């Protein structure tokens, strides 16, 4: 028997409080859990709108969220608590995320560049977290992000999302395949709901909006208006707001590339670039302050019609496996015999992947304060010196600068510094050298390699140089 959800009612033990939100596809209420099932954090109940005036999409979208939300882990999404039988009393109870809606924040846009970068990096973190769990959001817009007091965002509403391992109930719902008009990606407009890079396009729209207060493609009211983005280049953010630095424009326009193959291939890369502006490789688009000319636009239009002729051809896996690889280089000992082995191993690993980012790190001992007089003894002098050595180390690998970044970090404990960097930058694989034979006397368990291997949250590739047999054996 269907129960009516309204303030004051009790649904499966949950006491329904005030209504917080009335959205396009349903309602959100405050609820309190029964004492024996209190998860210890505040809760909301989401109920689909099922009246005659409601779109039929409401229930399918509710069902998608009911399928997907319980599979998601991590602090980037509300924790799932309970759900009701869809044929009886459909509801979803989940964690209430406290903070400020991004919808409020965009009203303050343009925001200072540092804030755009900070919020944007957190949004990219959240996207990376769901993408590695085989989920694509497909309806990114300010309303679906909440900025927590901690400065991290949470991602809401998985009603239009896609899970690679579950049937896509919205697959053939043509009119709803698209997300929100201002933010939707070109792939979604071509009825492709299985490309994680679609979320990166929408992230680009959000970054554009935060940085300029404007929308790159406006808010089209018609389907054909939405399709303009299949070929039209967005106005460069710097043309709208001169305060936007070239590196931020580079990131935004890289997200907004209409062909997904030319876009960022992983949310981790976007997060990385937003956190390391000095490492962003600038292309000519970074400096543009005017839209593309008529001829360029006409060429894009022509090309896009090739893409339209074959919708769905670009279907790829939902999670692009574009890895972030971090290599730890000991720049204090560049002549160490392990260096060529580390270089060779790195080259081999990169050769396996068509797409990757290489983060080269050198951890140097922190310089004691107030010591040294010469330039090379100052902290910045030492940094520069080691960065030069890193560049020298990576040069033989012949990689384009857009794929490599160089980092010199001062730390007392090299293993901890490497682990922190790997976690913060969504590194998928750490490559580092095993201790030298003479260092092994200290015990493997004390080495940087062992400590990183034991504590990393990703794979670790430990490179070891085989000991050469003694001359007598060789003869």
């Amino acid at each position, binding site marked *: 028997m269907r129960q009516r959800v309204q303030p004051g009612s009790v649904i499966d033990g949950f006491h329904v409080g005030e209504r917080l939100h009335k959205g396009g596809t349903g309602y959100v209420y405050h609820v309190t859990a029964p004492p024996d099932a209190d998860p210890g954090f505040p809760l909301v109940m989401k109920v689909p709108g099922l009246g005659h005036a409601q779109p039929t999409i409401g229930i399918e979208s509710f069902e998608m969220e009911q*399928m997907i939300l319980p599979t998601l882990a991590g602090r980037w999404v509300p924790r799932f608590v309970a759900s009701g039988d869809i044929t009886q009393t459909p509801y979803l109870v989940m964690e209430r995320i406290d903070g400020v809606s991004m919808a409020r924040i965009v009203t303050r846009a343009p925001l200072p560049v540092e804030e755009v970068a900070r919020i944007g990096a957190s949004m990219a973190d959240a996207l990376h977290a769901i993408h590695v769990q085989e989920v694509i959001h497909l309806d990114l817009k300010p309303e679906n992000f909440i900025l927590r007091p901690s400065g991290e965002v949470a991602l809401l509403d998985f009603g239009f999302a896609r899970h690679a391992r579950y049937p896509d109930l919205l697959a053939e719902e043509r009119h709803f395949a698209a997300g929100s008009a201002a933010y939707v990606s070109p792939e979604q407009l071509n009825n492709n709901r299985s490309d994680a890079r679609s979320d990166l396009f929408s992230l680009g729209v959000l970054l554009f909006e935060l940085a300029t207060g404007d929308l790159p493609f406006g808010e089209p009211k018609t389907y054909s208006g939405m399709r303009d983005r299949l070929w039209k280049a967005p106005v460069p953010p710097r043309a709208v707001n001169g305060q936007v630095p070239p590196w931020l424009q580079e990131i935004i326009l890289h997200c907004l590339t209409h062909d997904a193959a030319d876009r960022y291939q992983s949310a981790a890369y976007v997060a990385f670039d937003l956190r390391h502006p000095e490492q962003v490789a600038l292309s000519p688009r970074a400096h543009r302050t005017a839209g593309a000319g008529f001829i360029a636009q006409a060429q894009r239009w022509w090309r896009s019609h090739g893409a339209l002729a074959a919708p769905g051809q670009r279907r790829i896996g939902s999670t692009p496996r574009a890895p972030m690889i971090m290599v730890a280089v000991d720049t204090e000992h560049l002549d160490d015999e392990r260096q060529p082995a580390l270089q060779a191993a790195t080259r081999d690993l990169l050769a396996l992947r068509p797409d990757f980012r290489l983060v080269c790190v050198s951890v140097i001992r922190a310089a004691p304060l107030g010591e040294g007089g010469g330039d090379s003894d100052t902290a910045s002098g030492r940094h520069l010196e080691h960065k030069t050595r890193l560049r020298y180390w990576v040069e033989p690998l012949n990689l384009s600068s857009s794929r490599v970044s160089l980092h010199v970090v001062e730390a007392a404990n090299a293993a901890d510094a490497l682990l922190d960097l790997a976690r913060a930058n969504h590194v998928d694989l750490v490559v580092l050298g095993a201790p030298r034979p003479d260092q092994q006397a200290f015990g493997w368990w004390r080495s940087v390699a062992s400590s990183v291997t034991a504590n990393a949250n990703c794979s670790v590739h430990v490179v070891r140089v085989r000991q050469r047999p003694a001359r007598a054996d060789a003869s």
Partner: protein
Amino acid sequence: MRIALLSDIHANVEALTACLKHAGERGADRFAFLGDMVGYGADPGAVLDIVAPYARAGAVAIKGNHDEAVARSSSYFNESAQAALELARERLGADHKRFLAELPLLIRDGRECYVHASAAMPERWDYIDSPSAAKRCVAASQATYTFCGHVHDQLLYFENQQGRMCEFRPSPGTPIPVHRHRRWVAIVGSVGQPRDRNPAAAYALFDRRLEQLTFYRVPYDALTAANSIRRSGLPESLAHRVELGI
């Protein structure tokens, strides 16, 4: 209740034994054999020695086109299939032949419908190879869940809000929520003769209470099954198929 859905065993006793063990370890307490227990493989008798007792104990057992052809030859089959059927006719005793002859074409059980090919005219052995074929099947079965075999792939069709059927290719081992307010047609794959270049046996497990369907692939001793085919004098192509899953 967890129902193991096993189809297209095709006289492959090694694959059947592996799937039954796998399903047992995952709490299967009911079994449905969706037809084509014989044909192609070398051990029709051994397979029926396993299936018949399950059927007597209440398991669902459905007739497939190869099962039917043991009693009634048909020009429907290619040369190697004919050879395997001839082998079954020679080797099966009267009891086994009677068991096959008496199998029903379709069984309904509450919200579930079990059939070998399609619930729409099951005797025609039409393949469910498109959303429209799945639509015809569901229109005839009128069931929430229609479980079939015949097509050796694993596929799941579901009904959307407009009543259209949509196709989904499942990932083995992932429980898929299959809520009973919409209709589903599951093609469970072939236990004894997969053809998707993966020799692992295929079957599915339906959890009626949780409304979850999990498709599985089970690696088994395909080499032994292939060698049995070779020893029995059946065409090499049949052994090759089982070995490589082609």
